[in-house]
């Protein structure tokens, strides 16, 4: 049970990292994630499962990394579309995201070969590798958790490093005060476009991993992920206060694990209070409202 919560927390924590980058770092309320997450799931599932069936041993060995990369890239492409629509047509961020998300529903169906769902039960190289990654030392469940921890640590390290580079600092400043970035002689739109691509590539990777974990890719996987990601980011902010980017990144994972634990609790014991799985979305919405309320109240009385 606990390892299940942690695995889910980490996988969806990567999604929430993307939400953190768009909503917090770039101050760009991006709904594209509802399209980039399932795009990553579809692309990752297709690439990984078809490569693992390849007779070529080399291609077969690449199935897992290629699947993850495909998810990452598919999400990034969705982000690129949103950035292009936003900058070229000067539509508001929310509309740009909705346009991309709507279009990607059909694109995701095409990636999945015209079907809304692709089961991975018989052919799931990513999950297989993750579960056998530490065989002999750990049980499959804990081996899966270990591989998720490893991936998240690498991602965390890379992102923390990135936000300490010149480009990362400029990206942080962009969401804070665009004028300061312009004064530094930086083309702000290009920088923002890279940021939006990153903010969707991470959910794409998360989608590829989530599909493997659940054993299927589905076009409807994206429903409600922006709200879940936001709730995650806000929970993290509620628990840990910090101005340091490293801590801010780490607390996204903390928020994600808490969020998944709450959802698990609601699913398992919610019946006591009459809560059914149908109520989980309502719970997510309430969580966001409560988080905002608490942080507002706290700021006023600090």
């Amino acid at each position, binding site marked *: 049970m606990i390892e299940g919560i942690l695995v889910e927390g980490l996988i969806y924590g990567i999604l929430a990292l993307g939400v953190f980058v768009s909503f917090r770092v770039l101050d760009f309320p991006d709904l594209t994630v509802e399209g980039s997450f399932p795009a990553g799931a579809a692309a990752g599932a297709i690439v990984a499962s078809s490569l693992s069936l390849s007779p070529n041993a080399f291609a077969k060995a690449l199935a897992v990394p290629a699947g993850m990369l495909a998810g990452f890239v598919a999400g990034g492409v969705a982000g690129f579309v949103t950035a292009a629509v936003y900058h070229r047509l000067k539509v508001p961020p929310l509309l740009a995201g909705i346009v991309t998300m709507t279009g990607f529903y059909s694109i995701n169906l095409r990636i999945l070969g015209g079907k809304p769902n692709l089961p991975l039960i018989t052919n799931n190289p990513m999950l297989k590798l993750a579960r056998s990654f530490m065989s002999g030392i750990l049980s499959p469940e804990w081996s899966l958790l270990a591989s998720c921890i490893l991936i998240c640590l690498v991602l965390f390290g890379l992102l923390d490093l990135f936000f300490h580079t*010149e480009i990362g600092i400029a990206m942080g*400043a962009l969401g*804070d*005060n665009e004028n300061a*970035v312009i*004064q*530094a002689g*930086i*083309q702000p739109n290009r920088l923002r476009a890279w940021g939006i691509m990153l903010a969707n590539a991470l959910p794409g990777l998360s989608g590829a991993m989530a599909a493997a974990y659940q054993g299927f890719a589905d076009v409807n996987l994206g429903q409600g992920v922006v709200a879940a990601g936001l709730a995650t980011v806000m929970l993290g902010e509620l628990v840990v206060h910090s101005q340091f980017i490293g801590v801010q990144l780490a607390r996204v994972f903390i928020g994600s694990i808490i969020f998944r634990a709450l959802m698990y609790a609601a699913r398992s014991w919610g019946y006591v209070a009459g809560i059914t799985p149908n109520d989980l979305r309502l719970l997510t919405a309430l969580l966001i409202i409560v988080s905002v309320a608490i942080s507002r109240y706290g700021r006023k009385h600090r």
Partner: protein
Amino acid sequence: MIRLHNIEVSFDLGGGQEHTVLKNLSLEVERGQTVSVIGSNGAGKSTLLNAIAGTVPVRAGKIFLDDSDVTPLPEWARAMYVGRVRQDPLAGTAGDMTLLDNLALAYRKGPRRFRIATPPKFAREMADKVAELGMGLEDRLRENVSRLSGGQRQALTLLMAILSRPSVLLLDEHTAALDPANAEIVGELTRRFIAEFNLTALIVTHDMKRALEQAGRVVMMHEGEIIADLSGAEKEKMDVAGLVRLFKKVRGAEYAEDRDLLI
């Protein structure tokens, strides 16, 4: 060096109407020269700086900075030549980032690289620079800028504006939002930096006394035009009362009050 050649700026008021803010304006500022720009509200002083920086487009005319024609360049590309401080102390810095991060942003103009922005050596160099402000900020480099007072933040913005040694420094009433003590400090820092780095500067101000003190040349604007341009002996002889007289005379309106120019 700044060269403005017959520039014109107008804003669309809607319904086919437009308001011309700068009319056929020409101005030449030599390298290393400091020019004060004074004039009543709505004279077009800020618009003049906005036109040079590329914040507002010009309808006609040409703008040269350092002998390059920058007229077609967007604001971010012109920033290569321009350092700028506005009236609002919040305008030039990212408040939710540290002093060090802000300085790293301003240290070099142009595209960024995948390189650690604030290595220890850079932090030491910046501590020395910030110490020159004399505000004790060198010990607060890892604090967020939003924690600074208005005067401290404006002094930091000034430092950031000159850090990359821009060809042109544009100051738009950058001490007007500060209390008198801080305005004095930032004004003094401005004088020092301009002299030390021999900067070419255009300073918009309402304070005529300061306008005369800080610059070797004073330009008076009214309704989008330059109505007086004083330098050399002519400027040295001038005092505040003289400026007011000049303003009334050139403007030629009986109802002109001192307040129109002073405030």
